[in-house]
């Protein structure tokens, strides 16, 4: 009996250990920081945190590395795949080159959200979308609940699922896309982001994430991607990837936090250009600021990295640095530096409980300071044209830098309903040619706006021939909003979301234009008050006049009482006379009367009446 029991126990233990080892194989986590110095004293820092959870465990509410708060929301809203972006600033592709992750981990300015939801009907999908946006708004402290019908679109060509959806059919999976271009991204969005990480920003590369530096960056993008991945012959896993990319200005980052305002240094500290002929002890021509590429990790991020997250996969080096091999880099003890085969990058293996610090001294060789950034497949720039408050135009300049490859892409705009576009004015032409070229636009998907119910959705599949620039233009009309529809800062203008460009060939690449600020005609908001005041005045005048006519008796001037200085004099005399009389009476009354106050009172009433009578006269 006892043996049997022990056998059962043993088998149970072995079974459970088997289970746990299986789950450990399915659930993994790794994090990596890639530092890439860019030209013009910029530094790109890409933080990537990725964890996998097997789909069966996820469905059994067995969360290990997957954040429970997010997991429950996804399950509740029937979300198959989710992409959430918080971005700020502009990626300067002219100097910084191609975007990190091929542009797949970035969003337009503000907040962007797209998700594949499982729902039988469109209405159900809308309802789930409402649930999802509201729940995420609570989780990420952002106004995602403002993604309503007017800001939601269902893109046809632009977005393709990144994950493997085995049992997905077109009928019951809905792609919804919402964007809030005006949403600010700040520390309150980073706080919940860090709480989703297994190490919560207490260890590993996440310790470098500081709101003060992140939101001082020239460009930054926080991304959350959740997608199922089904490797061949293995169980499907749900992957969550959290990514933060930021481009820091090294000069600005090195300023002390308490004193970030650049002030001119005192005269004796000024570096002078001694080659100038007028250089003298009292005259100084300041030298240009060198593009300084010497920095340390703690200068840039304001703190050193505190070890590594103990949960992370040790096979993945936590920090990598992309500088030419010829540059010398110093690092703290207990760190193993490994140069990669490509000769332009190196990675660092860090002990779990060692503070990590790297120092990049000023480069000796000026030619090999940074790795030359890759040229992007396409440059895009969008701006408003036209003038006035009534109508305008949008012009997008698309430049293909490649000398021999044609670029084909989908250009997507989701415009607010108050920008009514004239679709017939949409045309594309190649720079240098005046006539429009119909062969550039291959396909157009269009869904017109409905006032106050939905925005315009425009998807254009087009191509740009090699080494040429294409202008895509269209006109629009601005509608006039109702008085209550204006936001409190209406005069600032209304943000128009970034256009999403998805390159189909020669390679997958994404980019977004900047958002636009559309100024609508704003009314004078004090107008209703002016109207109220004016109407009240008019009514008061009319009513006052009428009332006077009704209750007053009008007499000729000579019939009325005298007016003028003489009349005033007479009046004063009368009053003085009355006062004197009253005083006399009072004296006699006080002297004679002992019986009580009653007659006294009566007397005063009398005098009051007599005064009144005198005044009336």
């Amino acid at each position, binding site marked *: 009996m006892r043996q049997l029991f022990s056998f059962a126990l043993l088998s149970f233990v072995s079974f459970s250990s088997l289970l746990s080892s299986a789950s450990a194989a399915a659930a993994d986590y790794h994090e990596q920081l890639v530092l890439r110095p860019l030209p013009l004293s910029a530094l790109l820092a890409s933080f990537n945190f990725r964890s996998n959870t097997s789909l069966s465990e996820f469905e059994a509410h067995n969360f290990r590395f997957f954040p429970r708060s997010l997991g429950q929301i996804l399950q509740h809203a029937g979300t198959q795949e989710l992409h959430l972006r918080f971005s700020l600033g502009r990626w300067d592709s002219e100097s910084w080159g191609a975007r990190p992750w091929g542009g797949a981990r970035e969003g337009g300015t503000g907040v962007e959200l797209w998700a594949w939801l499982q729902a039988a009907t469109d209405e159900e999908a809308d309802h789930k979308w409402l649930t999802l946006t509201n729940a995420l708004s609570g989780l990420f402290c*952002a106004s995602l609940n403002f993604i309503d019908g007017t800001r939601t679109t269902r893109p046809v060509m632009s977005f393709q699922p990144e994950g493997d959806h085995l049992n997905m059919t077109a009928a019951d999976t809905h792609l919804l896309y919402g964007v809030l271009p005006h949403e600010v991204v700040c520390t309150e969005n980073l706080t919940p982001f860090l709480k989703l990480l297994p190490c919560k920003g207490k260890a590993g590369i996440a310790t470098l994430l500081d709101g003060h530096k992140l939101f*001082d960056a020239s460009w930054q993008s926080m991304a959350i991607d959740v997608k199922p991945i089904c490797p061949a012959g293995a169980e499907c896993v749900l992957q969550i990837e959290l990514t933060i990319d930021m481009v820091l200005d090294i000069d600005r980052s090195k300023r002390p936090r308490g004193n970030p305002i650049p002030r001119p240094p005192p005269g004796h500290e000024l570096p002078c250009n001694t080659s100038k002929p007028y250089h003298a002890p009292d005259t100084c021509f300041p030298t240009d600021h060198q593009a300084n590429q010497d920095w340390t990790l703690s200068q840039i991020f304001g703190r050193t990295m505190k070890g590594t997250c103990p949960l992370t996969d040790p096979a993945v080096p936590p920090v990598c640095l992309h500088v030419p091999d010829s540059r010398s880099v110093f690092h703290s003890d207990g760190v193993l530096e490994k140069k990669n085969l490509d000769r332009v990058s190196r990675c660092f293996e860090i002990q779990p409980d060692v503070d990590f610090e790297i120092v990049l001294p000023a480069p000796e060789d000026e030619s090999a300071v940074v790795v030359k950034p890759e040229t992007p497949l396409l440059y895009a720039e969008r701006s408003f044209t036209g003038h006035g408050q009534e109508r305008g135009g949008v012009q997008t300049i698309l430049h293909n830098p490649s000398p021999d490859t044609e670029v084909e892409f989908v250009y997507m705009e989701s415009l607010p309903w108050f920008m009514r576009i004239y679709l017939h004015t949409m045309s594309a032409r190649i720079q240098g040619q005046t006539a429009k070229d119909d062969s550039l636009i291959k396909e157009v998907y269009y*869904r017109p706006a409905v006032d106050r119910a939905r925005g315009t959705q425009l998807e254009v599949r087009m191509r740009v021939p090699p080494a040429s620039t294409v202008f895509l233009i269209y006109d629009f009309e601005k509608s006039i909003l109702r008085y209550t529809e204006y936001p409190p800062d209406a005069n600032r203008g209304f943000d128009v979301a970034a256009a999403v460009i998805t390159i189909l060939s020669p390679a997958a690449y994404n980019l977004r234009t900047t958002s636009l600020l559309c100024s609508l005609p704003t009314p004078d908001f004090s107008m209703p008050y002016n109207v109220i005041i004016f109407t009240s005045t008019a009514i008061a005048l009319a009513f006052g006049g009428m009332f006077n006519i009704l209750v007053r008796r009008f007499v000729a001037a000579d019939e009325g009482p005298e007016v003028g200085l003489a009349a005033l004099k007479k009046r004063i005399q009368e009053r003085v006379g009355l006062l004197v009389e009253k005083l006399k009476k009072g004296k006699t009354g006080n002297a004679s009367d002992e019986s009580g106050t009653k007659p006294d009172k009566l007397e005063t009433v009398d005098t009051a009446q007599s005064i009144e009578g005198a005044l009336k006269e």
Partner: protein
Amino acid sequence: MKLSSLLLPAFLLAGPSLAEHTSNWAVLVCTSRFWFNYRHLANVLSIYRTVKRLGIPDSQIILMLPDDMACNPRNAFPGTVYSNADRAVDLYGDNIEVDYRGYEVTVENFIRLLTDRVGEEMPRSKRLLTDDRSNILVYMTGHGGNEFLKFQDAEEIGAWDLADAFEQMWEKRRYHEILFMIDTCQANTMYSKLYSPNIIATGSSELDQSSYSHHADNDIGVAVIDRYTYYNLEFLESEVKDTSSKKTVGDLFDSYTYEKIHSHAGVRYDLFKGGAEEARRRLVTDFFGNVQNVEVDSGKGETNASFEEEMVRLSRTIAELHTRAEEQEAAKRNATASAAKTGKKQQQPRKIPRVAKPLTDDNWWTKKIVGATALAGCAALWGLGSYLEGVV
């Protein structure tokens, strides 16, 4: 045996503590937008830091910030908000949760929050999930006037609106005691209309008095805090070091002087049960701190019986509602069935296409022919008309 003897005094203590609160909540509202109102956000954030310092968790703080000062391009100190020119404490810090921000800060949302009349999709973090044992600190700041407070320079909340919201909260048993603080011009008029019990109210200035800012920071470029909030904070920082502090609300109110605040701060006790004396005896930490008084169920038969009775009654009501709903459903079904029988055409919900349509030239000729026919028809009509005119 020993355990029971230990528990006994605890039970005895639990008796008088029945009237105490078991949770603390804070509703901190800034109502001003735009950079030059930096000080109002700093006011609210300094109170936020104080209540957090005294132990109220983020989940029990509702923070409303209508504008973004920390990441504002005008801010020379990105990611920070300071309430003092010495810039010793960064109020924005590393860990902050803003529940309502930007355009979400409206009068409607504020009243919905207080009265909990929200949609089912509203996440828990944006709701005030209080009960009749919750003490609430309601702090408001912004620009106001006689019996109103402006929200984002676009709308106003009136003193009556606020009073009615509090009354609704009282009727719904959503609070135990409220400390209402307001820092705005003519602030005392805002609480003059309150009429619900157990509210202590205080404001920064009387009718026709302005509420002034304390000082400005030259690098930030604007005033950083208001006087009333500044001296409140001074008291809270220096006298209420932790939750064990025995300083009372009366001590806090006594620290207000005209010399410091430059306006007459007001206090209203008359709504409180027991009046001024009882109200002044409340601890500062009863509202600013998180003091969790655990209530032990007495476990007596009587209370259980009444509870069970209540449950039975409740379940009966639920059953009744169920049957009523079923009846309605059945009636509706009958109605639709009869409608179908009579052959009446059922109104189909109009199918709205959700997805963008491709622009194609498929039936280009058809479209042209339709257009041409219409034009020709018009021309024929006109010709016929002029011909007939000529005939007559």
